[in-house]
């Protein structure tokens, strides 16, 4: 059975078993070689060795920031005087992003394996999977997998006789994007408002319940079993020096074949768009593409010939982000699109930082004013001024994320703004 729109040019490591309903069961997973990696890591590797192989693989966090996973693990204190926690970030709420959902719904045990090995590596005795509450179809699948894993001794006391014990709790989010920010998530997990914390201290020093904690994205953890089984060099055979391995891109918007595709990280963006995703709808051209979720800068149609690596997309003027690709064709008015995105951030700002709370609100309001024909030319520098003040000054980067599409759309699609402003002024003169 083919997973919707699978394509031969994909490199399917994580997604190998997507679409196979049997892979969601524990037996089905074991038949597919599941839990071998757990046996290997817990049975024959030290914590340090696990961290080492993940370091060697060059794996970078898939949650958005791209921080090297092995390095992050190595920041955890080595002594065990305090309890350690692993928190799996399964809150996936970034607009345009739906790849973690696919991992969990088709291969929940793949994630659990990652959680177990990750927890072992950082010396955690308890792992939380913080899952987006709206994932009503996914949550039972993950819950069932956890129950099965406990019953077979992959979780709980003395896992597989290794002497290592791990409890795992699935925790449901309650509908706030900001709970996906790692320290907001920790607050939410503790029963508080999901307000991001000031860093430092970083979670490795003071995380969940004040204890050393690592937060990892679903995709980052799910690939770890493959690395443990096959080694760091094996993973490095794909991608580039700085961006090894494969990455899931969830592609949506004006595409013929939207869906989640797994590509080597040196894959070309244009090929992804035209070859795998089938290009824009009949008779349309791409106008803009956001490659990594709404928080990254927008690329214009002439910027799409880029490598999908961290450095490649950065060189093109954007970022890998979460890998949530949003394609927009030439029917799109960028002011509408950006206003929609900014409204999302205005709605989801936790409200702590002045710039973010007030800035997102005012930016959305000005964008609405422009759309409705009340815009003025001075609104452009005003938007840029507000955006400049929103970036690089706040507790978390939601504020930066909200500013990114405003700034890049003004840089690249100023015509759309000017046309609306002119039309409004014209209409005003006319009446």
């Amino acid at each position, binding site marked *: 059975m083919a997973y919707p729109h699978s394509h031969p040019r994909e490199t399917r490591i994580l997604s190998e078993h997507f679409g196979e309903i049997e892979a969601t069961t524990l037996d089905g997973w074991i038949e597919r070689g599941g839990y071998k990696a757990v046996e290997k890591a817990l049975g024959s590797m030290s914590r340090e060795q696990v961290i080492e192989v993940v370091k060697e693989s060059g794996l970078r966090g898939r949650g958005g920031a791209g921080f090297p996973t092995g390095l992050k693990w190595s920041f955890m204190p080595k002594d065990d005087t305090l309890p350690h926690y692993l928190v799996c970030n399964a809150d996936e709420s970034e607009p345009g992003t739906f790849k973690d959902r696919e991992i969990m719904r088709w291969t929940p045990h793949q994630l659990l394996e990652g959680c177990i090995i990750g927890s072992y590596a950082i010396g955690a005795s308890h792992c939380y999977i913080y899952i987006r509450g709206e994932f009503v179809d996914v949550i039972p699948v993950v819950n069932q997998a956890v129950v099965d894993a406990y019953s077979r001794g992959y979780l709980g006391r003395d896992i597989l006789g290794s002497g290592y014990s791990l409890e795992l709790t699935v925790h449901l989010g309650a509908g706030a994007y900001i709970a996906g920010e790692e320290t907001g998530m920790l607050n939410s997990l503790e029963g508080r408002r999901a307000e991001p914390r000031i860093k430092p201290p970083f979670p490795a020093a003071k995380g969940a319940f004040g204890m050393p904690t690592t937060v990892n994205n679903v995709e980052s953890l799910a690939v770890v079993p493959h690395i443990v089984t096959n080694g760091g060099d094996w993973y490095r055979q794909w991608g580039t020096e700085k961006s090894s391995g494969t990455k899931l891109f969830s592609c949506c918007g004006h595409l013929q074949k939207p869906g989640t595709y797994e590509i080597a990280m040196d894959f070309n963006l244009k090929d992804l768009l035209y070859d795998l995703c089938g290009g824009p709808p009949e008779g349309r051209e791409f106008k803009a593409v956001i490659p990594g979720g709404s928080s990254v800068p927008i690329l214009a149609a002439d910027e799409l010939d880029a490598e999908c690596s961290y450095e490649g997309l950065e060189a093109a003027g954007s970022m890998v982000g979460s890998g949530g690709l949003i394609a927009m064709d030439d029917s799109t008015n960028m002011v509408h699109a950006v206003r929609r995105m900014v409204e999302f951030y205005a709605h989801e700002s936790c409200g702590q930082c002045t710039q973010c709370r007030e800035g997102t609100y005012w930016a959305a309001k000005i964008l609405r004013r422009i759309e409705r024909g009340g815009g003025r030319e001075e609104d452009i520098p005003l938007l840029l001024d507000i955006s400049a003040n929103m970036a690089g*000054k706040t507790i978390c980067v939601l504020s930066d994320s909200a500013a990114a599409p405003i700034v890049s759309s003004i840089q690249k699609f100023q015509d759309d703004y000017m046309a609306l402003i002119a039309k409004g002024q014209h209409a005003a003169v006319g009446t």
Partner: protein
Amino acid sequence: MQATETTTRATSLTIDGTDVTVPEGTTIWEAARQLGIEIPVLCHDPRLRPVGVCRMCVVDVGERVLAASCVRQCADGMSVVTQSDKLDRCRATLTGLLMSDYPDESRRQVTTADDQLLELAERYGIERGKSALPRGNGRPDDLSSPVIAVDHSACILCDKCIRACNEIQHNDVIGRTGKGYGTRIGFDLDNPMGQSTCVACGECASVCPTGALTNVQLTAPLRPRSALTSVDSLCPYCGVGCTITYHIDPEENTVVYADGRESPGSQERLCVKGRYGFDYSRHPQRLTMPLIRREEFYPKGALSSDVRGARGARRRKKPGGLVDYDEVMPAFREASWDEALDLVAGRLKEIKDTHGSSALAGFGSAKCSNEEAYLFQKLVRAAFGTNNVDHCTRLCHASSVAALLETIGSGAVTNTFGDVGNADVALVAGSNTTANHPVAATFIKDAVHNGTTLIVIDARETGIARHAHHFLQIEPSSDVALYNAMMQVMIEEDLVNHDYIRDFTEGFEELREVVRSYTPEAAERVCGVSADKIREIARVFARAKSALIFWGMGISQHTTGADNARCLISLALLTGNVGRPGTGLHPLRGQNNVQGASDAGLIPMMYPDYQSVADEKVQAKFEKAWGIPLDPKPGLTVVEIIGGALSKEIRGMYMMGENPFLSDPNTNKVRKALAALDFLCVQDIFLTETAEFADVILPASSFFEKTGTFTNTDRRVQVGRKALSSPGEARLDWEIVCDVARRMGYPMAYDSTEEIFEEFTALAPSYAGLTHENLQPTGKLWPCPDPETGDGIQILFGDGFPTPSGRGKFVAAQHQPPAELPDAEYPFVLNTGRLLEHWHTGTMTRRSRALDAIQPQAFCEMHPEDLAELGVETGEPVHLATRRGSIVLAVRASTATPRGNVFLPFHFREAPANILTHDKLDPFGKIPEFKFSAVKVEKAEAASA
């Protein structure tokens, strides 16, 4: 918890090009301040945990993201830029964003003119209304609280109020609600402030930088501090003795508002009474002329319908339960001071001459200053010639003081409440601390937050119980059984401190004998707490590295009050928890000068500083000092004097600031007794219920109108300073006392209260060396061996006790039932007490606009299940009756009060609690059993309420 010594490393960095070295952990903002560089802030306040949300204080530390200097700690080699065009632009835009929707009129700016956002706006040249941003629709006003106005549109979400509420006062009322621009501060689950659990302490309004939370006008219009006169003084209410700066409008002769003032005790914190209860002194019912009872109103008796006890006879005209002056004033005529004073002195002297000195008695008050208390007892002892002088402390902590004097030789606290921060375990017994000592409670809550284990033992689930790790809800009056069982466990399991017992105590063997039979299983049957829990608590307490014991009237106001206190003292001695940081015995004192009034000698068996009247040497000392022979016979106590009036043993009385009609037990008996007096002089600021029985009423001065010293629950002697002038012909209390003494033939002359204080301290060794001058600005603890430099001794008895043997004495007690047990006819237990917003007999608080608005009505509390059984809804009237009398008032359902119990606040004259109480006394402390009477509860007809 014991503060662990950590060696602080130094950190070196440069700020704006200047090298600086600071202790590790210092924030950039703090370090910059030390260099004289001021970084603008909005959400930061050194009293609060930094949260870094407003982003006004951001600085460049060379990272991608600008860092908030108020939270970011300095690091070695860091290079910080606090001033640049980029930063200026950032701060300006930020201010602009906040200003764009700021209300045209900031309530803070138009009142106290210290709006910090407007200050920044001016600095960055941002004009309101000139913003290029489209103006939004503002967030709403919330004027539901009588004392704090909320303007959500002026809120910049700096989080200060939230931290003040949660981290200073630990009331946890305020939080943020909503997301994005819709984020607002919310009270509880986003209720209007006035309908939330807000206790109106005003801490939030005091830290708010904008017009969002401001104090409402209570007297004259609020104005900037610089336009008013500021007086550093004290709170007139409870024994915590918070320090306050009053801002006075001299033309209006009124306090306009109050700020908490920095001091070692209260540390700027205040409760609703201290911050908002200052306006009673300008109430129109203030007495301004001496009053003499008219001939037609003899024989004497009660005048107002409430005091007559004629329930339902007449509809109350005004709500709020104040004395109706129209009803009582016709009984009196105004007189000159000369006429009134002559009459007082003449009648008292006449009684003395015909019936002897012991037919006279005086009640002083714990509301009076040390100077007034000292002079008053001197008047009674030297001019009246009797030791029949007492005051309301008799009714609150007499049993505690008696037990403390008996066991450890000193009636005062051994350690301050603030030291609870150093305690491993704190035990709060029979104290509704959050209501009655609200600011002390904040320090207990602080301690809990920082790791102190809190044990609360009470019959009611009081506010402080909510913060306890262990809450033991015991059966009323079962204290001795519980504490004996705890001690039994400690001895049995060998958890006692043998070294301490050997070196510093006596009587251990007797104690061991007595408590032997109090097994946890036996105690369980009496106090309703499981044997396991008793064991657990005993272990927690005994194993504590340091333990501090607080107690209140739930311990003292019983016929077994002294026994209860003895048990707590034994607990401390058994475990060696006296004389070290984080340990001690702290009976929380009720009124502002309970400690001082006793220290100054308003006690029938003691001269000032607890020197026994029966001791010949002491007698000689005071005879010499006062130049007159003194009576060696100890006098009668409060309740005994009232009894004496009834039996004609007492014929003439002088009351300074006391209102026994409402405060003393068994009101119907008090009514008869007061009416039976041949002569009664009442000196007060209002015409109280007691004054209705007076022959002469002398108009006195309120707290705000005089200077004097007050000793708080910590033994801290502080100066209350004159802030207002007295109304009409009202005079200073000490001057009146001197005049009466002189006219009775005993000369008394002083130029000032300083001079009185000097005379008092010369006779009271504990106060030696203290003067008004060296007590300012924040007072000193007694004893104070080095008054010019030191703050006084905080922790007493590290090396023995001021007892004859130098040892602390175990005095064992046996459990005894209360004097009046429930029966078929009177099946409920009546427990009287206090509310946060009111104080004592309500003469002051019910005349405070704010306090009366918050808690205007008499009510009692019962468990909802009891109410259901009685068929009464919350808010409906009930009829409470005991063997002595009955009252009708509304009942509120509350699970804090256990089943079978009625909790009744005693502040309300229209439903006087003491109609119901009985006057059996603790044989040792002579304190009545306010906490336990048998009562009958019935649904009342609405009309009679």
